[in-house]
């Protein structure tokens, strides 16, 4: 099914959400009714049921969102006069706009607006509220009333100050704090005095939404025809929604462009010959997409990603880290305690994750909800938006894929708990955000990072192998620990992310964070050697309170390029430590000896090491740091 149809299905399934506001990410949002747009209002005028001015106020930014009845022309207006219904800018709603300093060309705006309102007020789809608003605005005294109510300040000749003059004394009136383009461009919304306290405000009244939709259906004699999206014979539209990604976004998903690009010319004389799209499906699809993006979308640069269920929009976000997927801290309590007893939290986390996902999956399936869509949008130019990724999956496949991602692309992750500042660790998948930072560096261009998101999407939700070049890039970065000096990034956490990605790349070989004693792959063993050298020297340096870099760190890059030769160098430089420290280093010497023995002569070459060496290195270090107690016993034996 096409993306438009899917989105309009989301709209149908969530019809109950239309016009209902919810708060997410500190923003109030709603699924818009058909034929309505969302606008930010700056002035609110309350009128009496008889159509008299009661009072007015300036609206603070948090409450500015207003659902406005609109025509396709007004929703897509640019410079020409195309009024919304009911609420609009001063230039439209105020009959005395020009008299108080507005540009003369706006005279028509008010006439068009009041003509439209009159039609609605006199139609059989009207309500007493609309009639009250109409009778008020037809007086043509909006600005005068606002001036009297001390909302808009005027000068001696009764002209509104568009900008607050700096020479003026006194505090800057509120209106100038909320408008961006001058007081005369303020957006006005109307409310009629409520008869009872639980009555909704005019711009959130679902009864009025419906009456407007019916009114528009009857009056707007638009062309009818077959819709290419639904296949129905229905009212068509040629104007499609903009502002999909955010309020300032004018890019459209559907637009006709043949005057500057070779898009449909040939068989067709005009865009409607090439395709016809129904008004309802277009409105619903765009409103649904806008709502989903606001609600649960992520973005990098100009690219927006959103994952949703068709029936129930909430689904796990593919880009989240394992910890985020659990919301807050499932790790803090039971898991963490268990984890402290045994380092190997890998299976535990996977198990818990599986349970959690199955729980979510279960609630979804129970109600026969079974489809999930992943969609990404981006605009190459300002005007046109393109679907750059689209995938439609069955819900069980989706959950399986998410679980697989979190159990195959994982390594030890260390994070600081916000409340206690404690360092905590778990084995899981880092978020895609952190991966992008780790692969390209925190200062990299966001245009590069968005490509990484797009390329990882198939790996996450289609279980595709990870692109090798991504692993190679992060491997090359990690190989140079010194390039991390004087930057905010930590080499250690980048190493962990690199390990997660490497682990994913070598998925079939089943590497684990827990040290694999029996793994005799060359890269792994060399990694372990370097790990031991690092831990040993670091320990001794710490005892001496010496803060310099270890030889293992200094030769990291050289070691990965020419392991055999470099190991000789490192080994030689460790000799003084062995000699001076006596018994305490015996354990390390024994360990090194054991591993060196396992690297046979054929393997002891200078062939560069593959990324797997990082896994051996990381596992070895982790092992040595956490098994302190055991080590002491070993020391005695050695």
């Amino acid at each position, binding site marked *: 099914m096409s993306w438009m149809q899917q989105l309009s299905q989301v709209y149908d399934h969530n019809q109950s959400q239309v016009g209902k506001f919810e708060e997410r990410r500190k923003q109030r949002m709603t699924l818009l009714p058909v034929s309505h747009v969302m606008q930010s209002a700056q002035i609110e005028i309350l009128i009496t049921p008889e159509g008299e001015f009661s009072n007015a106020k300036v609206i603070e930014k948090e409450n500015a969102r207003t659902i406005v009845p609109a025509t396709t022309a007004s929703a897509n207006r640019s410079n020409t006069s195309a009024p919304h219904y009911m609420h609009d800018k001063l230039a439209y709603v105020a009959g005395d706009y020009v008299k108080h300093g507005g540009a003369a060309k706006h005279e028509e705006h008010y006439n068009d607006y009041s003509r439209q309102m009159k039609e609605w007020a006199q139609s059989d789809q009207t309500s007493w509220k609309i009639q009250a608003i109409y009778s008020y605005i037809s007086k043509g005294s909006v600005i005068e009333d606002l001036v009297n109510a001390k909302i808009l300040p005027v000068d001696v000749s009764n002209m509104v100050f568009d900008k607050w003059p700096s020479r003026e004394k006194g505090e800057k009136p509120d209106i100038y704090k909320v408008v961006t383009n001058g007081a005369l461009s303020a957006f006005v919304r109307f409310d009629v005095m409520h008869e009872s306290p639980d009555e909704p405000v005019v711009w959130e009244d679902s009864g009025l939404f419906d009456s407007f939709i019916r009114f528009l259906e009857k009056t707007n004699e638009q062309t009818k025809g077959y819709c290419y999206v639904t296949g129905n014979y229905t009212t068509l539209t040629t104007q499609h929604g903009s502002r999909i990604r955010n309020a300032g976004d004018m890019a459209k998903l559907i637009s006709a462009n043949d005057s500057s*690009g070779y898009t449909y010319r040939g068989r*067709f004389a005009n865009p409607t010959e090439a395709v016809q799209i129904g008004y309802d499906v277009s409105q619903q699809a765009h409103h649904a997409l806008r709502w989903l993006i606001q609600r649960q979308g992520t973005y990098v640069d100009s690219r927006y990603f959103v994952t949703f269920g068709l029936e129930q929009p909430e689904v796990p976000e593919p880009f989240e880290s394992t910890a985020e997927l659990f919301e807050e801290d499932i790790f803090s309590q039971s898991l963490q305690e268990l984890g402290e007893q045994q380092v190997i939290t890998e299976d535990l986390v996977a198990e818990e994750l599986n349970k959690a996902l199955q729980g979510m999956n279960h609630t979804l399936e129970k109600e026969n909800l079974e489809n999930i869509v992943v969609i990404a949008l981006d605009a190459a130019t300002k005007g046109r938006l393109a679907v750059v990724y689209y995938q439609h999956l069955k819900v069980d496949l989706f959950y399986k894929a998410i679980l697989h991602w979190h159990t195959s692309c994982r390594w030890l992750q260390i994070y600081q708990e916000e409340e206690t500042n404690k360092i905590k660790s778990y084995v899981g998948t880092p978020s895609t955000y952190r991966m992008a930072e780790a692969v390209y560096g925190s200062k990299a261009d966001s245009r590069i990072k968005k490509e990484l998101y*797009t390329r990882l999407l198939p790996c996450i939700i289609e279980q595709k192998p990870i692109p090798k070049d991504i692993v190679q890039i992060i491997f090359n970065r990690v190989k140079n620990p010194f390039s991390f000096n004087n930057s905010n990034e930590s080499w250690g956490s980048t190493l962990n992310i690199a390990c997660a990605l490497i682990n994913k790349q070598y998925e079939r070989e089943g590497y684990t964070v827990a040290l694999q004693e029996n793994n005799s792959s060359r890269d792994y063993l060399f990694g372990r050697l370097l790990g031991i050298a690092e831990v040993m020297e670091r320990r001794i340096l710490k005892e001496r309170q010496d803060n310099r870099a270890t030889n293992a760190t200094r030769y990291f890059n050289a070691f990965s390029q020419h392991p055999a030769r470099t190991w000789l160098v490192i080994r030689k430089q460790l000799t003084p430590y062995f000699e001076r420290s006596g018994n305490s280093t015996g354990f390390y010497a024994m360990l090194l000896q054991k591993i060196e023995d396992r690297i046979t002569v054929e393997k002891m070459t200078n062939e560069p090491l593959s990324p797997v060496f990082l896994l051996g290195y990381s596992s070895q270090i982790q092992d040595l740091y956490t098994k302190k107690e055991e080590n002491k016993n070993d020391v005695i034996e050695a």
Partner: protein
Amino acid sequence: MRNQIEFVVHGKYALFTDPVTRIGGEKFTYQIPTYQALKGIVESVYWKPTITWYIDEVRVMNSIQTEVKAVRPIKYQNDGNDLMYYTYLRNPIYQVRAHFEFNENRPDLAYDYNEHKHHNIAKRSVKRGGRRDVFLGTRECQGYVEACQFGEGESFYDDYGEVSFGPMFHGFTYPDEGDQESFQTRLWVPTMRNGIISFIRPENCEIVRTIHKDKMKQFKKGSNFTSVEEEYEDMFKGVEK
């Protein structure tokens, strides 16, 4: 079926543009080939005005995957470039089954209604990969035709069950294959069963939209085409018989 041919067509990419995105230029592909795209491929293999090709079935061999590319197409009206995102299907392979019927709208070519001849030419053309170059949806997606047995080999969708794609473009009805006076678009709702989509015949499409008036192209012997005998004479003029 009588006069049927079977072949496999594959390419690196395919772009069966969804008309919704076509008009803006940011082309986004349909998930499966349209009837019209396949008909175009068959017509590239072999075509004569005497015959009309009908696509019977298509079998989707590889999993449906998309890939987005940022492209810089040349603008039509001036020398500048544009920036766009096109979404292609990656690694498409389709097995196609098609047959031809004589075009009843061309009684003037009735003398050429020789089934055996056309069927054999068509089969030979398939073996040689077609007469003209083949493309999958859009011109930049070069495709390759090879003879095959329809249904042989494994498809990703063999035991996949049913997938519905919602209303889609089926094809155009040009005047010479329709009512001789109008250019029409057809829509239909395809269903894929275990990877196979059986197409309905153009005249059975329920949703047909007349786009504009148009007329049939005329073929007049001697003015815009020559008979094979004349062509032969012309070619071998100087050769001793």
